[in-house]
C-alpha cells in the first residue's frame, strides 16, 4: 500500500458542521481522525439531503458524509462524568485535538487546552469558532450565514435590488476549515520538530476576510466600499459577449471581450458558420464587431461622438449573440467555445459536474463502498493529487461505529504503558 503523508498522526475531533471539513482534509491525507460525537449525533448528521433508499437518519446524511470521509466515530456523552473521563483519555492520546464548540465549552468539560497541555505538552489544539477565542464577540452565536455576513462577503454578492446573497455550500464553515487545516499542519510541523505544542485559534470571520477580493484594499486605499452589482456587474449597459447567456438546457458565462483568449470576431465567425450572424457583416455592425473589447468600449464610452456612433448598435449585436447561445446546449457553448479559444465557462449544474468530460477522463470521482447500505456510492474526488502519497477517501463512519474498537485499543495502550 502506498505511503500516506499524514501517516501516524492521530487527531481527535469534537466538531460539527463548522470544523468537520477540516478533519476530513486531514483524514483523507492519512491521519487517523477519531470523531467524538454526542449520543444521537450532532446537527450535521441530521441535515438533508439523505441517501434515498432508506429512512433518513444519522447514518445517511449526505451533508455529514461529504465532510466526514475517512474518519472513525465514537459516541460519548460529555455531560456524564464517565463520558468526560473517556473523552479526556482519548484527547490525551492524540497529536492533534480539533474542536469547533462555543468558547468555554471544552474547558467546562475538562477538555480545555490549558488543562490538556499540562499532561501533553506536544499537543496541537485547534479551535475553530465563528469569531475566535478572544475579543468582544468571542461568545457570539454563530452560524454559516452569520459568518458570511460578518466577514464582508455577502455584501458583494447579489442584485442591488435584492438582499445580499449567501454563497452556497456552507462556505464560511469551509473557509474556516481549510484555514484551520493549513494552520494545524504548520503547528504539527513545529511540534514534530521541537516537541512543543500550541493552541491554534481560527475565527471563521477572519478565515474568510481574503474572500473580499479587493474590497478591503479599496476601503483602505480609496475610502469607498465595493457593493454588490448583480448581473450587470460594474458596467453601465450589457455588452455583447460578456456575462451569462441562456442556452437550450442551462447557461454559459462569457468573457469574450476580456483581454485574454480569442476576441469577438472569432465568436462572429462561429455565428456565421451556423448561419446566425445575420447582418453583423454589414455596417454599422461590422465595424463594432471587429473592434469590440473592453478597451474599445472604454474609449468610445468616454468620447461622446464615437459613443453615439457605437453604443446604440450594441443592443442589436447582443440580441444576435443571445439568440446564438439560445440555439445550443450549455456544454456545446462551453466546449466548442473553448476549442475556439473563446473565454467561456459553463454554468455547471450538479449533473453537468457529474458528467464533466474532464473530471471523468481524469477518473476524479471516488467509489466508496457502503457495506451497511449494500451500495457503492460515487463521491466527488480529492482537491489534489500527491504523487508519492496519494489521497485515499474512505467511507464516512456510522454514528459510534468505532466506539468499542477505539476504546479497546486505548485500554491496551494504557495497559502497555503500566507494564
Amino acid at each position, binding site marked *: 500500500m502506498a505511503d500516506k503523508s499524514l501517516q501516524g498522526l492521530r487527531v481527535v475531533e469534537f466538531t460539527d458542521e463548522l470544523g468537520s471539513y477540516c478533519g476530513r482534509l486531514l483524514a483523507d491525507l492519512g491521519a487517523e481522525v477519531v470523531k467524538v460525537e454526542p449520543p444521537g449525533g450532532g446537527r450535521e448528521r441530521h441535515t438533508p439531503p439523505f441517501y434515498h433508499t432508506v429512512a433518513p437518519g444519522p447514518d445517511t446524511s449526505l451533508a455529514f458524509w461529504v465532510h466526514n470521509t475517512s474518519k472513525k466515530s465514537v459516541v460519548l456523552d460529555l455531560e456524564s462524568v464517565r463520558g468526560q473521563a473517556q473523552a479526556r483519555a482519548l484527547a490525551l492520546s492524540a497529536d492533534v485535538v480539533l474542536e469547533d464548540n462555543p468558547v468555554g465549552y471544552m474547558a467546562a468539560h475538562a477538555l480545555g487546552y490549558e488543562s490538556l497541555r499540562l499532561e501533553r505538552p506536544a499537543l496541537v489544539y485547534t479551535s475553530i469558532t465563528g469569531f475566535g477565542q478572544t475579543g468582544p464577540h468571542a461568545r457570539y452565536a454563530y452560524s454559516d450565514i452569520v459568518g458570511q455576513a460578518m466577514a464582508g462577503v*455577502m455584501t458583494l454578492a447579489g442584485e442591488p435590488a435584492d438582499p445580499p446573497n449567501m454563497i452556497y455550500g456552507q462556505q464560511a464553515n469551509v473557509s474556516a476549515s481549510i484555514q484551520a487545516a493549513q494552520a494545524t499542519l504548520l503547528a504539527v510541523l513545529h511540534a514534530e520538530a521541537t516537541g512543543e505544542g500550541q493552541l491554534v485559534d481560527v475565527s471563521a470571520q477572519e478565515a474568510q476576510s481574503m474572500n473580499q477580493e479587493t474590497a478591503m484594499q479599496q476601503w483602505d486605499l480609496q475610502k469607498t466600499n465595493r457593493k454588490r452589482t*448583480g448581473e450587470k456587474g460594474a458596467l453601465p449597459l450589457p455588452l455583447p459577449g460578456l456575462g451569462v447567456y441562456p442556452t437550450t438546457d442551462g447557461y454559459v458565462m462569457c468573457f469574450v471581450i476580456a483581454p485574454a483568449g480569442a476576441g469577438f470576431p472569432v465568436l462572429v465567425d462561429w455565428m456565421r458558420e451556423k448561419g446566425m450572424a445575420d447582418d453583423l457583416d454589414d455596417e454599422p455592425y461590422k465595424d463594432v464587431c471587429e473592434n469590440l473589447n473592453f478597451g474599445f468600449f472604454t474609449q468610445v464610452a468616454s468620447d461622446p461622438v464615437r459613443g453615439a456612433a457605437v453604443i446604440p448598435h450594441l443592443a442589436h449585436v447582443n440580441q444576435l449573440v443571445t439568440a446564438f447561445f439560445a440555439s445550443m446546449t450549455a456544454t456545446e457553448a462551453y466546449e466548442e467555445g473553448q476549442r475556439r479559444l473563446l473565454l467561456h465557462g459553463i454554468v455547471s449544474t*450538479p449533473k453537468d459536474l457529474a458528467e464533466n468530460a474532464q473530471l471523468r477522463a481524469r477518473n476524479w470521482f471516488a467509489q466508496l463502498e457502503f457495506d451497511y447500505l449494500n451500495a457503492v456510492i460515487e463521491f466527488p474526488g480529492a482537491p489534489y493529487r500527491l504523487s508519492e502519497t496519494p489521497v485515499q477517501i474512505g467511507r464516512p463512519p456510522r454514528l459510534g461505529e468505532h466506539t468499542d474498537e477505539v476504546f479497546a485499543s486505548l485500554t491496551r495502550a494504557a495497559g502497555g504503558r503500566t507494564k
Partner: protein
Amino acid sequence: MTKLPLDGIRVADFSWFGAGPIGAQTLATFGAEVIRIESEAKLDSLRLAGPFALNPDGTPKSSYNVSGYFNNFNAGKLSMQLNLNVERGQEIAYRLIENSDIFLTNFTPRVVDKWNLRYEQLAAINPRLIAAYAPMQGLEGPHRDFLGFGAVLTPVTGISQMSGFRNRPPFGIGTNYPDYVINPGHSCVAILAALRYRNRTGKGQCVELPQVESVVNALGTAVADYLANGTVQTRTGNRNPVASPHGALPCTSDPESVGSTDRWIAIACYDEAQWRALCDVLGATELSGEARFATFAARKANEDELESTLGVLTAAWNAEELMAALQAKDVPAGVVQNAQDMLDRDPHMKARGYYQFLDHPETGLAAYDGPSAVLSVTPGRHRSPAPLLGEHTLDVCQRIIGLDMDEIATLLAEGVLV
C-alpha cells in the same frame, strides 16, 4: 525569538494572479523565504489592476507597485525578475529551483511545458523538491488547455448555479471567489502534508491541484446528491434546510457606509427558542405563536411571508443594535458588514488585530490581510510589505544563485533579468 514552522524553507514562487500567490504568501507568513519570479515580458496582471493607492490629489498612482490587489497577496516575499522566454532565463530558474525546497506554479500546462518546468525535469535537478502545480483544469485531460481564471472557475465549478435567488440567472457571487481561500488553502494543505512526508522520508513529490477539482470538493452536497440520489439541486437563495427564518433582512440605512448605504442583518433560527427570542426582541411576541409560523414546518411552508413580515419589523432597527439585542438572547445574528466595517468599525476585528498595517515605499502605510489563524507559540506575520517589481533580483542572483556582478550585468544586458 521563537522559530517559525517554515524557517529555513525556500519557496520558488512561479505563480501569478490570486490562487498561487496567496498560498505562497501563507508559507512566507510562517517563516519560509519566498522568491516570487516575475517578468515585465509577462507581467502579473494584478500589478495593473486596481484598487490603486491614491495621490494626494485623489488620482490613482501609476506604477507597477501600487496595486492593493497585487500587494495583499504578496507580502513578505522577495521579487526577482526573470524572463523565462529566453533559454538563459530557464537556466537561472533551474539554479534557483535546485536551491529551493518548494516550487509552486499556477501557469497553464502549455506554459509549464514551454518553459521546461515539468515535474520530471525539476525532480531530475532536485529530487527533494516538492513541486506544486495548480492549473485550472489539471495537467492532463481533454480540457487541460481550456482558458480560464477565477471568473470562469466560479460558474464551471457550480458555485454560480447554486448561489443566489431562484428568480435570477446564475450570474455569480460578485467576486472570483475560489481564488482567495479554497484554492490557495488547499494548495498549502497539500504542500505542508508533502513537507511532513519529506521530513520523514527525505523524498520530494509532485502535488497537482486542479482548481476545478479543489472547488468541487468543497461544494457541499450538490454533486454528491446527484451522484448518490440522482437529484439535481439548484440555488435556494439565503435559505437553509434546517433553519427558519434564515436569511438577510433589511435594517435602517447607514449614511456613513461610503458608497454602500443599505444595511442588512443575517439571522438564523435553528430551534424554537431562537425563534421565540427573535420575536420577543422584535417586539412581536405574538408572532411566534401564530399558526402560520408556530412550528418549523409551518415557517418553512410560509417562508416568503415569514421573511416579508419580519423584514417590516427589522427595517425599523439599526443593524448593530439589533445584532447586539439578538446575540444577548443567543440568536445567531450578524450585520452584513462591508470592508469599512471589517477594517475600521467592527470592534471585535480591531481588538483581535487581524489586519496588519505595513509601510510600503510607494503606497505608504497600507492594510494587509493577516495570518488566517492565531498560533499561540509560532504566530505568523508579514515580515515586509509586498516587494517592488524586481526589488530583490540582485540579492537573489548573488546570495542564492551564486552569480557574480559581471555575470549579472551580462544577464541584464541580454534581457534575461527583466
